[in-house]
């Protein structure tokens, strides 16, 4: 996020820097909006994270014990690690699978393109029946996937694909593909394809062209997709709760249960603050990584 400017696309000599604060009218509306509808309400709730919860009631007594528990107790620390691990895996798979689809959709000339583009929205829209029932039909020990793999002789015993982190990863990767494909497409389309032709004319083969030209130029899209998928996976509730069952616990399911069922709002809001810090730190790290390669996030 800090950033040297996009050196590849904009030689500094060509565009002069303006010193007028032209950013103010751009920055103020969204910032004011988010402060009122997001920051202040959240801050009011986050105050609770500094209060003690005792015998089912909130006590007006300042304490850091909610944070101490979440960051000190091995159980909660493991929940944080698992949230990180699952979200990173999902972000990787989403980006990895999105790239070919985005590349295909950008370059294809088929008249079916509007349909193919719209279809990419389907996973995100697939809904509650898939989550609570459809995945069960596919992933359970006697489900479609295990049956097919066993018939093909690829498996001896069924894979355990429900109620664990693998199930959560599969479900989240599926639902978040929408975001990956469109984000990478936004990057691929803004890129000047004549650069690829130029590289090929200069003797580079397809693989070299892709690795040296296309991939670096679409780094903003790759990082953007990775970040969106990471953040959404870390905050998702329904998919981990249902596909994971309750032998799986991640930050979002912890927060939901504490907020709604156990009614320990101080612990829930402390967990929410920690999750916010994790996601924004990831954004910053990805930004640094991108900036070093000339792609400001």
């Amino acid at each position: 996020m800090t950033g040297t400017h996009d050196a590849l696309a904009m030689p500094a000599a060509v565009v002069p820097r303006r010193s007028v604060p032209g950013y103010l009218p751009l920055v103020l509306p969204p910032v004011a909006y988010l402060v009122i509808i997001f920051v202040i309400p959240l801050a009011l709730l986050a105050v609770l994270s500094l209060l003690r919860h005792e015998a089912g009631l909130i006590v007006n007594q300042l304490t850091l014990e909610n944070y101490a528990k979440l960051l000190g107790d091995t159980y909660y620390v493991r929940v944080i690690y698992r949230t990180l691990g699952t979200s990173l895996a999902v972000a990787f798979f989403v980006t990895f699978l999105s790239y070919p689809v985005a590349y295909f959709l950008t370059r294809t000339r088929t008249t079916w393109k509007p349909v193919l583009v719209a279809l990419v929205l389907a996973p995100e829209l697939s809904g509650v029946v898939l989550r609570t029932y459809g995945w069960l039909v596919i992933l359970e020990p006697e489900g479609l996937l295990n049956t097919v793999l066993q018939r093909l002789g690829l498996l001896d015993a069924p894979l355990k694909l429900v109620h664990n982190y693998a199930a959560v990863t599969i479900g989240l990767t599926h639902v978040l593909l929408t975001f990956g494909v469109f984000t990478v497409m936004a990057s691929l389309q803004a890129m000047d394809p004549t650069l690829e032709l130029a590289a090929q004319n200069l003797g580079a083969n397809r693989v070299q062209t892709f690795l040296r030209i296309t991939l670096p130029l679409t780094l903003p899209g790759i990082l953007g997709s990775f970040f969106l998928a990471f953040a959404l996976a870390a905050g998702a509730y329904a998919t981990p709760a249902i596909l994971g069952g309750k032998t799986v616990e991640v930050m979002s399911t912890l927060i939901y249960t504490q907020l709604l069922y156990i009614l320990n709002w101080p612990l829930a809001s402390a967990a929410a603050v920690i999750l916010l810090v994790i996601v924004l730190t990831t954004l910053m790290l990805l930004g640094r990584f991108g900036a070093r390669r000339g792609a400001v996030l």
Partner: protein
Amino acid sequence: MKRRAATVVVIIVLAGGLLPLARAGAVRELVVNAYGGEYEEIIKATILRPFEQTRNVRIVYDPTGSASADFAKIRATRGDPGWDVVVMTAPESLIGCQLALLERLSEDRVPNQKFIYHEVRNGAGPCGAVQELQYMSLMYNTRNVTPPPTSWRILWDAKYKGRIIVPDIGNILAVYLLFMAAYMNGGDQHNLEPGWAQIAALRDNALAVIESSADMVPYFERGQAWLLPYWDGRAHYYKNRGLPVDFLIPKEGTVGLVNTLNVPVGAKNKELAYEFINFWLSKEMQEKWAQAYTVGTARVDTVLPPEHSQRHVTSIRQLKTLKIPDFLYIGQKRSEWAERWKKIMVR
């Protein structure tokens, strides 16, 4: 041209969204919050319509939110969630009363309260009016579990490994199961250690651990799960819907669930709300509701057909066999239990 068309679209859309605001403020209106799905059809036909017909009232029915989400809403709005009457369970009723978010439902406000069993009224606290009684039954698949189970110990039986659904601690069924595990092993609801000792074994025997009662059903529909501790009302409902299941109380007995009607302190039409609650607690409505929703009643003078009263709690004799939990104690300990439970269940 295009831009003007866009403006018109936006205005139409906004007006459409805001229209219901303008419509509000009709004559005597009562907002009732309960549940959706088929519950909505049952409550409308059995309770809401008769109430509307016998007096000049329009009921706005709000099916949004589980009892827990409802309570969170009451808490976040400091007792003014926009409803006059809300259906919850005893633990929420008690905590809400403690936090002064709910009105007290004394006998001068709701005269029919005097017909409710005292044991049950005490359980629900001064802010709750008990409109139904349920209990944790053992629901089983009739094709695969023969003969029918007789003991809760079947949940720990290795023969049914991978066929059992265990409710998660967010669901009060899990607390009840913990109680039963304690009772069966020499403890009680204030001495849970013998129960805790059984939870790891329960986990190892389970197919899945699930929080929401509704999410447990697909496993029965798919024939994956055969045994589940479940509310008698819901179990009976699925049996009636054609699932190959039945339900019973094992020999060790079981724990009762007290459901309540509550009035948030910020309710706009309190008098009408009390009248509505009194109506629901009347003898006639109690008998109708118990049969329509396949649950028990806490009213002393109800008369129900034997095929119903055998399966649900409708008499003092049946009530005496139930363990009525100390809901206040549950409220105080829930957070601590949840943490301990999670540390056993999560791998």
